[in-house]
């Protein structure tokens, strides 16, 4: 054992590991995970992973037995997003492995570090269409950062080491390790490499001084600059650098959906979220800026609306991204920096000057006051936006909030002002329904002392609500806030606006009684239908020392505004009817 390994064991109080001892592939895997400082594993056993589960029996690891593999991977994802550490999940071969697919694609789209371990049938059976055989490495090639099929137990330690390295460095992402059963059962002396060497892989990119000078020069010449801060700020832990840079240069900051929390939503320079359901000021800022500075943001079509020529038409676009393939992919750029946002900003801050932007900032402030997010209050009717405001006010914006996908997701992004990185966890790129609740479980496990709220719709919650068993079994105190409008709200909104009110297949009135459902799992269930009830019930939920499901029965016909319809440009915003 190397000195580093010995130090690691001492420091992290991990079990002693005998190097050179002959152990099985399953035991090898678990030893590798210990050395990677993995603490929690989310998973579901099955035939092909029985050797691994047998080794897990009575081991150091805290294993969370979800009720579906999709729950396991979303929980691992939530854990990873809440901590920045890689999430780990295990599934068996065939259907177990394919049940991970949506979660892998979700993590890939949002650049989340995951290590997914799947079992497979023995190599002698590979290719024979054996029971529960699926080519999971082949299936997941387009949705992983990298994947491995382990052919020899002697390769396993190197592969695990590489997998964690790849998942967590550069642009993070999911890595899959598929282990056939014969490899899990084989025996070999245990070793673990100290270092990773992957030829051609660029793990980190520190920009050159020349690139940084060009970046600073372009920014300092601007009079109407705006920063578009994406998820890369959070992934790179660059929130302090972003704040210092914005304050020094006096450049307002727009947080993309994935970047919410990367810059405080309560800051005077914050313009909040742009795009399809972004606010008027952020979109006007993009339309009128003379310089848009993309920092770890990928200019996706929910922001550009796919109309890239009309996006930020008066601006030079400056783009910093750790993934060189993002530079120039979606929009034409004037200056590009292929590099880590944190080190780029750290180099840029001493060189940067204050921009001549006060007139611009005042204009943006005027717009912000004139066109805030707003909705029409209606007596005793509980409005969904009011529910999110209640969640925000009751937690002073300090909770970790996860969401599913749909209207409630957008209202959460609009009305909950995220102040801290890793406090907003949502499926941005793939838009995965069923993500929010298991992700909250992972986030709560990572942060047992923080308030974790899972805002879900009545549609998405029913995709993974079987994980109520987990919060009950392990007493995970997630507060589930169902924004229940008894339909698929976002689909209904689009049908109303673009399909002539032909409400095809969105009726969810025949959903279960969510209070009784929660109680059936041994979880506290509460319901509110008016603003007064909502306040009282939510206070009770927060005070309860354990998981709670709150069924907020909200107005059914409410739409998300502002909205830029598909095919339109950012200057064609519908602000709503009030």
């Amino acid at each position: 054992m190397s000195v580093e390994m010995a130090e690691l064991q001492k420091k992290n109080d991990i079990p002693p590991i005998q190097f050179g001892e002959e152990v099985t592939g399953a035991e090898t895997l678990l030893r590798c995970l210990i050395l990677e400082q993995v603490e929690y594993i989310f998973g579901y056993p099955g035939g092909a992973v029985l050797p691994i589960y047998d080794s897990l029996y009575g081991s150091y690891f805290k294993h969370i037995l979800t009720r579906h593999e999709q729950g396991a991977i979303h929980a691992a994802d939530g854990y990873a997003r809440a901590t920045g550490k890689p999430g780990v999940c295990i599934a068996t071969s065939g259907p177990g492995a394919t049940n991970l697919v949506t979660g892998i694609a979700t993590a890939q789209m949002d650049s989340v570090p995951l290590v997914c371990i799947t079992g497979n049938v023995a190599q002698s059976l590979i290719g024979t269409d054996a029971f529960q055989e699926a080519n999971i490495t082949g299936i997941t090639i387009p949705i992983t950062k990298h994947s491995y099929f382990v052919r020899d137990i002697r390769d396993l330690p190197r592969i695990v080491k590489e997998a964690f390295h790849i998942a967590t460095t550069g642009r993070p992402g999911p890595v899959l390790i598929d282990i056939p059963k014969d490899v899990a059962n084989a025996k070999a002396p245990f070793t673990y490499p100290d270092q990773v060497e992957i030829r051609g892989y660029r793990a980190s990119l520190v920009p050159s001084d020349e690139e940084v000078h060009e970046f600073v020069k372009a920014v300092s010449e601007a009079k109407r600059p705006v920063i578009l801060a994406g998820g890369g700020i959070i992934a790179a832990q660059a929130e302090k650098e972003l704040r210092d840079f914005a304050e020094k240069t006096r450049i307002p900051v727009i947080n993309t959906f994935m970047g919410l929390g990367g810059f405080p939503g309560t800051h005077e320079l914050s313009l909040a979220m742009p795009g399809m359901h972004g606010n008027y000021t952020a979109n006007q800022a993009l339309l009128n800026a003379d310089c848009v500075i993309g920092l770890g943001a990928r200019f996706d079509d929910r922001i550009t609306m796919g109309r890239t020529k009309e996006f930020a038409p008066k601006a030079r676009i400056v783009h910093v991204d750790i993934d060189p393939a993002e530079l120039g992919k979606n929009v034409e750029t004037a200056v590009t920096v292929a590099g880590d946002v944190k080190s780029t900003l750290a180099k840029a801050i001493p060189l940067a000057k204050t921009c001549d932007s006060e007139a611009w900032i005042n204009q943006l402030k005027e717009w912000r006051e004139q066109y805030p997010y707003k909705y029409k209050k209606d007596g005793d009717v509980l409005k969904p936006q009011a529910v999110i405001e209640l969640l925000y006010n009751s937690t002073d914006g300090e909770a970790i909030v996860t969401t599913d996908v749909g209207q409630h997701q957008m209202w959460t992004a609009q009305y909950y002002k995220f102040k801290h990185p890793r406090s907003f966890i949502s499926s941005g790129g793939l838009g995965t329904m069923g993500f929010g609740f298991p992700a909250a479980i992972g986030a709560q496990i990572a942060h047992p002392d923080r308030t974790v709220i899972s805002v879900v719709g009545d549609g998405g919650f029913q995709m993974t609500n079987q994980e109520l068993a987990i919060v009950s079994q392990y007493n995970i105190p997630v507060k589930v806030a169902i924004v229940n409008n008894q339909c698929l709200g976002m689909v209904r909104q689009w049908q109303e606006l673009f399909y002539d009110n032909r409400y095809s297949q969105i009726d969810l009135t025949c959903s279960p009684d969510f209070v009784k459902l929660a109680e059936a799992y041994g979880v506290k269930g509460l319901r509110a239908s008016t603003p007064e009830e909502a306040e009282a019930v939510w206070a009770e939920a927060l005070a309860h020392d354990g998981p709670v499901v709150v069924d907020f029965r909200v107005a059914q016909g409410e739409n998300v505004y502002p909205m830029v319809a598909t095919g339109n440009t950012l200057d064609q915003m519908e602000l709503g009817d009030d």
Partner: protein
Amino acid sequence: MQQHTISVLVNDQPGVLTRVATLFGQRGFNIDSITVGGTEEQGLSRMIISTGGDDRQINQLMKQLHKLIDVISVTNLSENPFVSRELALIKVTALPSQLAELNGIVEPFRAAIVDVGPSSLIVQVTGDTEKIDALLVLLQSYGVIELTRTGSVAMARSIVPATAAAMV
């Protein structure tokens, strides 16, 4: 749309070809031809990929290829002079009595007749795409029964000549 020849050095691992081909499909690029083979270094393979696109598209394609963990380097050979060759085997309807006549056609192309049967023969030709296309046109009149061609293998020239005329 311009034609480009991309040289991709990859780890010789199972599934690498699938990863590269999947990337092309996923990102909406077409592969006109692809060849894979060994290199001067054990454990590495080189892919030569012919594809079409404007400069921005090819630039993006090269960046995407570089993201693959098993890809070690990506070079757009079309940016500088390069040598490109493909191999074709062409089975032509012909009687043995026509052998001399066909030899007269293939010889200027430095091609060869490598198999002769009672009613057909096989011509082997190497060269750039245009040369093989030209020979094919001549052989069409005899009746081409079967054609198989490899796609390009290519390599950057050692010396970049001052003028294209210096190239052979």
